[in-house]
């Protein structure tokens, strides 16, 4: 066959290194058109209609205020967002002017050169002073602000009121009690998981690490070092992984579960307790356990304390490639304003990122209370480093938890390996 020529071409190609692989030009556009069409990408939620209605009214008001301006909103599926965003960065011509994104992706997108620095505009925006500090941290990279928080999400402990009543159980007040209660439930009701946990459910596991005084990483932007193998973190990892036993949540089934799987199990009435977010409320309400569950903050190590939760949520940012800079920033502020966030809470249950708006929401809807309490007790965020996207997508932490759960490695060895991989990522990406 044409093997030799093919090899020759390959080798020749390799030798000719003068031509580098393709790179798209993502430098910020100099244009700042005051009219035209603005393209917006928002996430498609489960049951998206109420969100569309809120957004439509914001857009209508915006189009009325700006002559000759049209806003084209597209809802993109959450599962394919990574590809869509990559494509947008690779081809600025087909990119939107504004987009919604998960707050753990901020640093990665900034490094990719996709997001516009809006520090000045954010500071000048009258509503921004009420923004929750953790939410603000999630749009901040190296002291600069790249977008505005859209909503926050935190997780708390869901439990079955009927099961607790039948077994005469009290709501656990600390982590030791949590584990004991879980085992009691499983012993009395073998058809239920005590506390359903997942080996791939990182944001359910991290509160155990944080409550024990551990950290994902120490340092600051540019010089992070992993701390997942510290003594305190190891204690937390041990507390979480010791829940994967036949007397609570059998490893053979629970090791591969992610966050959604645990919520699905709880909603289907297969678990006594679960760690779920405010955003899981709708799914649980739609499940079999409707009316027979309650939510409390996840207890910490000390009795009565609250385990620090991961401050999840989404942001809205302007893309660097936009040719309507002023208009896009204005629309961003309208979409993330106090008024919009309040209506989005009513429509979708998204927790507002403004402290005062959140208080009003909690007063209106009692189910928000445990989540608001959790937020008030202090939350944690992932390292604001571009390396985080890589650590997240190469599954460093789920792999660590699964290695321990399945007995392949002990806590010390697995956490040390994970720390090594994290440090490598921090080293190469800063």
């Amino acid at each position: 066959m044409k093997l030799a020529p093919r090899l020759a071409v390959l080798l020749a190609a390799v030798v000719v290194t003068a031509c580098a692989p393709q790179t798209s030009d993502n430098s910020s556009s100099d244009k700042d058109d005051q009219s035209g069409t603005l393209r917006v990408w928002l996430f498609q939620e489960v049951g998206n209609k109420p969100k569309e209605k809120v957004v439509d009214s914001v857009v209508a008001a915006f189009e009325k205020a700006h002559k000759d301006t049209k806003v084209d909103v597209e809802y993109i599926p959450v599962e394919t967002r990574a590809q869509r965003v990559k494509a947008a960065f690779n081809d600025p011509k087909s990119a939107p002017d504004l987009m919604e994104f998960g707050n753990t992706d901020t640093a990665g997108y900034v490094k990719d050169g996709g997001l516009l620095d809006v520090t000045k505009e954010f500071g000048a925006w009258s509503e921004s002073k009420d923004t929750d500090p953790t939410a603000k941290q999630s749009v901040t990279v190296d002291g600069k602000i790249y977008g505005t928080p859209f909503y926050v999400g935190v997780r708390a402990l869901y439990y079955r009121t009927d099961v607790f009543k039948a077994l005469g159980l009290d709501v656990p007040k600390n982590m030791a009690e949590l584990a004991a209660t879980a085992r009691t439930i499983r012993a009395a009701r073998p058809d239920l998981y005590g506390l359903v946990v997942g080996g791939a459910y990182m944001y359910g596991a991290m509160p155990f690490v944080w409550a024990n005084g551990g950290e994902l990483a120490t340092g600051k932007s540019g010089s992070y070092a992993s701390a997942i193998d510290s003594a305190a973190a190891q204690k937390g990892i041990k507390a979480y992984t010791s829940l994967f036993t036949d007397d609570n949540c059998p490893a053979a089934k629970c090791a591969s579960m992610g966050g959604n799987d645990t919520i699905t199990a709880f909603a289907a009435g297969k678990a006594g307790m679960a760690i779920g977010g405010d955003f899981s409320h709708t799914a649980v309400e739609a499940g079999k356990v409707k009316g027979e569950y309650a939510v409390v903050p996840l207890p910490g190590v000390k009795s009565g304390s609250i385990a620090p939760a991961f401050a999840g949520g989404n942001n809205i940012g302007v893309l660097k490639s936009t040719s309507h800079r002023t208009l896009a920033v204005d629309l961003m502020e309208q979409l993330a304003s106090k008024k919009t966030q309040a209506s989005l809470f009513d429509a979708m249950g998204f927790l507002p990122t403004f402290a005062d708006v959140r208080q009003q929401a909690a007063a209106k809807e009692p189910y928000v209370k445990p989540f608001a309490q959790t937020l008030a007790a202090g939350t944690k965020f992932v390292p604001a480093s571009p390396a985080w996207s890589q650590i997240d997508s190469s599954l460093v932490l789920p792999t660590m938890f699964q290695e321990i759960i399945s007995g392949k490695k002990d806590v010390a060895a697995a956490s040390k390996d994970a720390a090594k991989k994290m440090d490598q990522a921090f080293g190469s990406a800063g």
Partner: protein
Amino acid sequence: MTAPARPEGAGRLGVRADRGSRPRGGSRTSNTAPRPHRYRSSRQGKAPWLYLAPALVVLGGLLVYPIYQLGLISFFQYTQAQVSGGEPTTFKGFGNYTDLFSDSQFWQVLVATVVFAAACVVSTLAVGCALAVLLTHIRAVPRLALMLAALGAWATPAITGSTVWLFLFDPDFGPVNRVLGLGDHSWTYGRYSAFFLVLLEVVWCSFPFVMVTVYAGIRAVPGEVLEAAALDGASQWRVWRSVLAPMLRPILTVVTIQSVIWDFKVFTQIYVMTNGGGIAGQNLVLNVYAYQQAFGSSQYGLGSAIGVVMLLILLAVTLVYLRLLRRQGEEL
């Protein structure tokens, strides 16, 4: 990717099997490219190139250029930040390769891939050959049924097949556990049991190729040879070992190499059935690992390096394949 490779191989084999049954000489010269070239090259001039041109253009566009890009990217620090212009692209030399070779996970995955592919090839050949022999011994109706069942398995898209197999072995709803009385045993939790499950699916969807090809080969073996063996009182196994297998050697070589290439590159089954590589990555094979590095973590440079390593391994296998074919061509 694999789908077009198979029918093409089958077509080639069909010709080969035919040839075996005929007296020597005959159609051979028109089939083997190098021969006519050797004596008529001066007269033909540009004609062969003209005929080849369309194929060469397609090959160039769809094969050479991507391989060129793959090789090129593997020498650069090339992640999403470089693609979208956030950071300059820097030349890393063999940096990606040294990163890869110093990663203990790569070696684990490579060993797992080789062992898993070997197990798949052996099982596929065993099942395929056994059923091919069976086909020659049964009546028309059951033969048709078996053929149809095999072709059905062959025609099923890998992703559908994987999902169905996964469902069959599901701990909560799967019929297999119910029939075997295993309760809620999870087949995907243990490393070996998960690999075993994937192996079953791979064998199921690839044995038909072996079976059909070998069956065609057996049909082409002259009846008197088998009759003579039977008269000598040879057992079924003995006939296979001493008569059929040696006569079918060219066919067996080809299906083996094809299976090696195919099973080495297995992706869909692992990705679907072990949920992207199993618990703590215990069921990763090279192709899924490359996908994870290149597209999961956006490390396109490193992913390309893995691709190049796979390409070289498979090129080596192909070279062996070509050598074997040529040697047999002279023997025949």
